[in-house]
């Protein structure tokens, strides 16, 4: 089973004992380009957080067979006022490989230059990140992801507040990752975009409503079920005893 990338084993994630992802079981194959869709509060970001190792499961487990992980959170910790240039921020993508002490070679600097070119930020190298627009910053974070050179790439709403031209540019990069055999998971809300670009989809409304080929997952019936999810936690919810 060398092709399996991620195995969800009856995975339940949540906050203060309330589940946000409830009993997810399934597999993601190596090289999958997977969209995660569902209503707000449906557990999409929570799932990525768990995969990134920032949230421990309430029960169940997830097995990750991939090495290296690049994660772009929806709301990151990036200090936008920090005096750092566009080029240097892109270079931080190399810290996973080079560590906090290793020397960054000429070749790697050239790769950073190429990554900036790929996201259309050539000429911005010496600009302070403070001066970038939201969309430009998002492109820069994509360049950093490229330099991280990871087998697993997690994107949390990467296209929110991005203009259509930039989305097209970023989709090209995402397809390049797909072609290189990387496993990409992206949380998205634009169903048309998902249908056009993502072979596989996970529909998540706290309970998993489908994981598989996009055409079979995104049916009207399932989307209606997803839309009907009660978003608020039930304060008086009783303990869950569902068998694994």
């Amino acid at each position, binding site marked *: 089973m060398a092709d399996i990338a991620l195995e969800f084993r009856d995975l339940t994630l949540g906050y203060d004992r309330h589940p946000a992802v409830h009993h997810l079981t399934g597999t993601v194959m190596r090289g999958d380009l997977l969209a995660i869709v569902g209503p707000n509060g449906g557990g999409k970001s929570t799932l990525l957080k768990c995969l990134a190792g920032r949230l421990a499961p309430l029960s169940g487990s997830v097995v990750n067979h991939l090495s290296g992980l690049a*994660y772009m959170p929806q709301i*990151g910790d*990036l200090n936008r006022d920090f*005096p*750092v240039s566009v080029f240097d921020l892109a270079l*931080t993508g190399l*810290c996973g490989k080079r560590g906090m002490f290793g020397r960054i070679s000429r070749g790697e600097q050239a790769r950073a230059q190429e990554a900036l070119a790929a996201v259309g930020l050539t000429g911005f190298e010496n600009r302070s990140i403070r001066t970038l627009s939201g969309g430009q910053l998002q492109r820069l974070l994509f360049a950093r992801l490229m330099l991280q050179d990871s087998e697993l790439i997690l994107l949390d709403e990467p296209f929110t507040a991005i203009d259509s031209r930039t989305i097209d540019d970023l989709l090209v990069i995402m397809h390049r990752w797909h072609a290189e055999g990387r496993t990409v998971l992206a949380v998205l809300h634009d169903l048309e975009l998902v249908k056009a670009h993502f072979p596989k989809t996970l529909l998540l409304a706290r309970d998993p409503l489908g994981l598989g080929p996009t055409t079979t997952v995104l049916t009207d019936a399932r989307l209606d079920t997803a839309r009907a999810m009660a978003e608020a936690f039930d304060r008086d919810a009783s303990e869950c005893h569902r068998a694994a």
Partner: protein
Amino acid sequence: MLYDALIGPFVEFPFMKRALVGGIAISLGAAPIGVFLMLRRMSLIGDAMAHAILPGAAIGFLIGGISLGYMTIGGLIAGLGVALASGLVSRTTLVKEDMALAAFYLISLALGVTLVSASRSNIDILALLFGSILALDDPTLLLIVSVASLTLAALAVGYRGILMECLDPGFASGVSRYGSLFHLGFLVFVVLNLVAGFHALGTLLVVGIMMLPAGTARLWSDDVATMIAIAVPVAMLSNLAGLLISYHAGLASGPAIILVAGALYAASLIFAPYGLLRRFLPQRHLEA
């Protein structure tokens, strides 16, 4: 004439010479630390730490009297204890670092005052608060110079890690297991510099030589390395000018040093490239 004003005092009086050497060494270590604190939006942390160190040093004094060793060790234990405990609390609970630190330094301060007053000793709290840069002996100078050297070496080695941890802590801990260790290590050096500096400037004023040059540097540059390169000479100049002013005008030297640093900051606030004056001297905007 100029010689008498600027150089004479340092040639003539060994205590002035020692004060200058001590001040320069403190500047080398504390000013870069201040730049990083400022970039982390922790400019007030130095002040909180100073309050945490004070009771430790006071208890050291109670045990060993005016003893470099006891007061240093007391300050270190209190400072490191508070720094590490608050780092731990902010990483394991919902309490954020500023609250964690506030809680521990207040406990440390209250505990220290209680112990000092219970002992009924007439401790010279003013010396602890404001230091005695004109009375630096050899062991104290050695301590200050050692801490400055260690600090520079540690900042050089940990530069990337500390910057990454300031810039994007979530990302830093994602790509490196040592992410938060850099932060804790950095806090250790904040404490070390405060402890070394308080012998000269006192626990409260030493924060001034740490933060004021950093604030000044921020107004002159938008680049971290340049900021450090500005903050260190600004701190040194403050020491030199402060000592001379205190000598000629017969003023307390520690406060004089910090006042010079404050004056440089105030002047920069107005005249520096990122200061106020630029707002009132609008330049025409560019084409693109």
